[in-house]
């Protein structure tokens, strides 16, 4: 039976990265994943609202989960921030009766209740389960592509909450990427934060963290960065523009989404993959990407 999910887009993807949404939809269509629009969603709250007031964050995020649950659907999101927020809330509300009661008291006047029936999944989790199907569909191998894959913190940590991959040696998305013939290179700061959550409190520190990451990716001779999160991608494909190291060398590398890589290798037209919207030029690897 085809998999079916309410797709929780969050705010960053439809406002900044239409190429991620479009490439996700194109790949999902190829693989027969049914994406249902998420009616009535609110902001996920992310680590920002959790930082301000945990009660408000649990209620906001609990409402999102309850909406899908009350419609009898599971949730899938392509954003690490939304994924972390939804999973973390689900974890708290599942284990902690006091908080569950408090949230349900706030949800009741809205005609909603959280009971914990809806599953919350990240897009790459769903794709990983379809690995064999994806392997069969690779028609345009991406040999020579050396990917610095950045999983992003909230996809893999805390592992007892998100439960996706080994938190110290994640390999699942790398396995997907390597189905295309590309190499997912080992790089020193691969598991380190991209710095994006600090853009709200200290752009200086966020930028320092990003430059360290890029130096590490370049040392590993990567020729692109790949992410599965619009918040991380903001660092690699927006904040990185024009950034140089101390000697004046550019720190830029082309940055792509997981679904753009898979889509290209699966022979999907470049247009719905939104490649022209990637901000840092893809020219240095255009021949490897075959477009």
């Amino acid at each position: 039976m085809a998999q079916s999910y309410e797709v929780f887009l969050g705010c960053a993807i439809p406002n900044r990265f239409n190429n991620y949404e479009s490439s996700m939809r194109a790949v999902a269509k190829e693989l027969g994943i049914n994406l249902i629009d998420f009616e009535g969603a609110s902001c996920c709250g992310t680590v920002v609202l959790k930082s301000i007031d945990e009660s408000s964050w649990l209620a906001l995020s609990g409402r999102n989960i309850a909406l899908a649950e009350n419609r009898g659907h599971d949730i899938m999101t392509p954003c690490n921030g939304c994924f972390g927020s939804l999973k973390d809330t689900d974890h708290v509300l599942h284990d902690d009766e006091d908080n569950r009661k408090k949230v349900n008291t706030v949800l009741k006047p809205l005609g909603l209740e959280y009971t914990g029936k809806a599953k919350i999944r990240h897009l790459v989790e769903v794709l990983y389960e379809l690995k064999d199907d994806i392997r069969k569909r690779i028609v345009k191998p991406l040999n020579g592509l050396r990917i610095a894959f950045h999983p992003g913190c909230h996809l893999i940590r805390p592992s007892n909450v998100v439960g996706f991959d080994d938190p110290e040696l994640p390999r699942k998305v790398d396995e997907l990427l390597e189905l295309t013939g590309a190499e997912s290179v080992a790089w020193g700061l691969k598991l380190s934060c991209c710095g994006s959550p600090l853009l709200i409190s200290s752009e200086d520190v966020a930028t320092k963290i990003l430059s360290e990451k890029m130096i590490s990716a370049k040392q590993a001779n990567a020729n692109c960065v790949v992410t599965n999160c619009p918040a991380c991608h903001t660092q690699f494909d927006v904040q990185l523009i024009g950034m140089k190291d101390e000697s004046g060398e550019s720190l830029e590398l082309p940055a792509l989404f997981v679904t753009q890589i898979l889509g290209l290798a699966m022979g999907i037209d470049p247009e719905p993959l939104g490649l022209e919207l990637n901000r840092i030029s893809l020219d240095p690897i255009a021949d490897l990407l075959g477009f």
Partner: protein
Amino acid sequence: MTETWGKFKSFDGKKFEALDPEFTREVSSMLGGEDLTACFQCSKCSAGCPVSDKVNIQVHEIMRMLLFGLKEVLETDMVWLCTTCYTCQERCPQGIDITDIIFGLKNMAFKKEIAPPGYIAARKSLYDIGRLYEPTDWEREDLELDDVPELNVEDTRKMFDKIGLMKLKDGD
């Protein structure tokens, strides 16, 4: 070292006269705080922290300050420069939910109006327009995508009013 945040920059020459066990208990009672007192200062948290070399006060130091009941912890840069990457929490040999404890400290600091302006603006934006920041709409038609989906404002505002998000204050 950063100058970007936090009044409490160093332990040098500081005298702490009142240690407040009530403060330690208060932090222990917040989300993730239950194992706070199990910290034995191995510093593994700071060893893996992406901002250890960029802050004045490191993670293991704020854990110590919490055990000593030092409220000055809320004035340290580590609280708001924690990226929430969860590496410390993942690696803590005592199983302490360190990152979640830091979230609790952020909540406490916010109530005392010790927070970067970006967070205060984000709260207002979330309440007023249902988003943490102003959206921009671009290039969607070319990719045959629907309009940017509306986010719910009305119901979420009712929830925030009930919980008191816009009226958070110290002592609640």
